[in-house]
């Protein structure tokens, strides 16, 4: 029987891997992409990851922003590492009504900070690029490895945050009147907002406010184009061609977060495919043996030496401890599945001793991802 991942790869055009940092999202996304390509899908894997980890997983030391073809024995696979700032610059160029405004925005210090540090901006730009690839329709499957987040569900909240920020109402409410009043004399304006701005001015200097004002002033002309773009992007995310995968690990703080992610996804009516639990601890003790009996029965003289019995005892205790850990993880996965009323069986990938840092390693992962 097929597991959910096989069906997802077969039926979807976009797969979005979400998960908090350090769960192995990038590696698993790359592995899925290899599988899809091998199955005959022209596939591209996108990552907007400041740590550039996909490059490592794909065996590249350095990656450019251009699309790279990954050489496989069979199938067509491409990868692109995207620079958020560059994507944002391109988006501004597309939406901007004139070259002068584009130039003004790009050189504004507020823009410099917004394009780098605004919460949710990396997520938003990842989606913008995803949309661009999707609408060009050059690939059968696009896999998006989302930027590393503190919490997986931040990805789903990014669009609202960004839209709220660029809401030019703010400009009309606060900044524009403030600067107009500035020319006439501020003493006539003593309402809440202008007071707030006066405080900011005192707190950090007029320079910052002027940059803010200029930024929103320039942005005003392209707001409609920008919003329209955003609407199309979110339509794509909700489309039946899209599927969300959540990659997590079976540690308590992580799977609680996974549950939250799932609930938010459902609320937003976004298509969920299933959970992948990575780095699951393997279980070792398969049979229960009474050691003294076993030793007597097989007449093992080695254990007449007290030190040997002692080492054996320590060894078995240790393995039992490891197994307790493995058992706890298994129960946690089961409980999560029950609590959320999931119909798909989650996929478990064991914690491996060998590091996945080349194409071969990515293919080796398929035995855990697909043949369960």
């Amino acid at each position, binding site marked *: 029987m097929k597991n959910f991942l096989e069906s997802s790869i077969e039926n979807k055009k976009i797969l979005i891997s979400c998960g*908090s*940092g*350090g769960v192995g999202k990038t590696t698993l996304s790359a592995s899925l992409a290899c599988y899809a390509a091998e199955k005959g899908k022209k596939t591209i894997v996108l990552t907007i990851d*400041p*740590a550039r980890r996909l490059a*490592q997983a794909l065996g590249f030391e350095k990656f450019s922003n251009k699309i790279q073809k990954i050489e496989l024995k069979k199938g067509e696979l491409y990868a692109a590492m995207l620079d958020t700032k560059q994507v944002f610059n391109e988006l501004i160029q597309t939406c901007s009504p004139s070259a002068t405004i584009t130039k003004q925005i790009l050189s504004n*210090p*507020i823009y410099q*900070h*917004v394009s*780098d540090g*605004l*919460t949710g901006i990396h997520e938003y730009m990842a989606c913008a690029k995803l949309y661009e690839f999707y609408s060009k329709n050059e690939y059968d499957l696009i896999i998006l490895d989302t*930027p590393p987040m*503190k919490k997986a569900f931040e990805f789903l909240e990014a669009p609202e945050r960004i839209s709220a*920020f660029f809401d030019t109402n*703010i400009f009309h*409410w*606060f900044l524009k009147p403030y600067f107009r009043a500035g020319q006439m004399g501020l003493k006539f304006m003593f309402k*809440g907002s202008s*007071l*707030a701005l006066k*405080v*900011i001015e*005192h*707190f*950090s*200097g007029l*320079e*910052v406010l002027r940059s*803010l004002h200029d930024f929103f002033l320039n942005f005003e002309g392209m707001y409609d184009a920008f919003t329209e773009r955003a609407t199309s992007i979110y339509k794509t995310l909700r489309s039946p061609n899209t599927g969300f995968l959540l990659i997590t*690990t079976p*540690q308590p*703080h992580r799977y609680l977060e996974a549950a939250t992610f799932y609930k938010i996804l459902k609320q937003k009516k976004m298509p969920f495919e299933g959970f992948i639990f990575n780095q699951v601890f*393997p279980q*070792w*003790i*398969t*049979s229960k*043996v009474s050691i003294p009996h*076993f030793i007597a029965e*097989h007449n*093992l003289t*080695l254990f007449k*030496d007290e*030190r*040997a019995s002692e*080492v*054996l005892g*320590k*060894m*078995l*205790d240790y*393995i039992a401890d*490891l197994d307790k*850990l493995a058992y*706890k993880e298994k129960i946690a996965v089961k409980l999560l599945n029950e609590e959320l009323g999931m119909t798909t069986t989650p996929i478990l990938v064991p914690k491996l*001793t*060998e590091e996945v*840092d080349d194409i071969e390693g990515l293919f080796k992962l398929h035995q855990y991802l697909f043949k369960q």
Partner: protein
Amino acid sequence: MPINIKEKLIFITGKGGVGKSTVACALALNLAHQGKKCLLIELEKPSSIAAFFNKKNKEITSQLTDHVDLKTMDYADSFKEYVLKKIKIGFLYHLAFENRAWQVFLQACPGVKELIVLGHIWYFLKDENYDHILVDLPATGHSLSYLKVPQHIKKFITMGPLFEIACKVADMIQNSSIFYVTIPEKMAISETRDFILHLKQDLALKPRNIFLNQCLKLPFNEKEKIIFDKIEKTLSTYPEFSSVFKGINYIKVLKDKLEEYHEHLTSRHKCDIVELPFIFSDKWGHEELDTLSTSL
């Protein structure tokens, strides 16, 4: 082992999920055992540290042990306690800061919130009651981003109280002791290397120690290795035990990797590494933290 730290201010940083908070606690306990009075500051709510000590942490500050106090605070607390009270900007300003314009300003100028929190920490440094202030920095994509906030702010705010705070805080960071928590896994190690390089490049600082957390140890020492080999020879032929030896070998491979990472960080990056054991426990409590604290 008692760990001797000269600096009053201690930052503990690292990626999420590596056990940063438990290490921060263990470090505080270690210092407390030496008779040092510590204030542990946690910058994320709800507090995870309070739970280790079975505390509810309803108050902002709570006493964890005789020598360790915990303070869990976020930007809103820092704003109320530090900006409004200590830099005294009056009640009218209070109204202003709840305004939406201020919220927009905060969003457009990333780092301002963090700067205010750091400014608040600076204020605690003056408290004579404490020998050490330990700050458990929030897990961010980049562990360095918090420490670089003052530099970043100074690029676009060039006057006023925020600028002054940035200068003060930059100084404070230069005179602190930075501990980095990581785990023996390839990605985590390569991020550790990046952290060390950037800390040097951007702030001209060096981490005091790298804590390599969750290190699995073999259940026997070097001397007992010969005995283990004999046991393996005798028992591995029985199917009842085959998976047990697989398990031990699994740990062996992880242990070899650990040594490789340790060696890499020590020789190539001249780091002071402290290995911390993996602690098998269902729940973190005082006892587990004490165990961890003695392994420091």
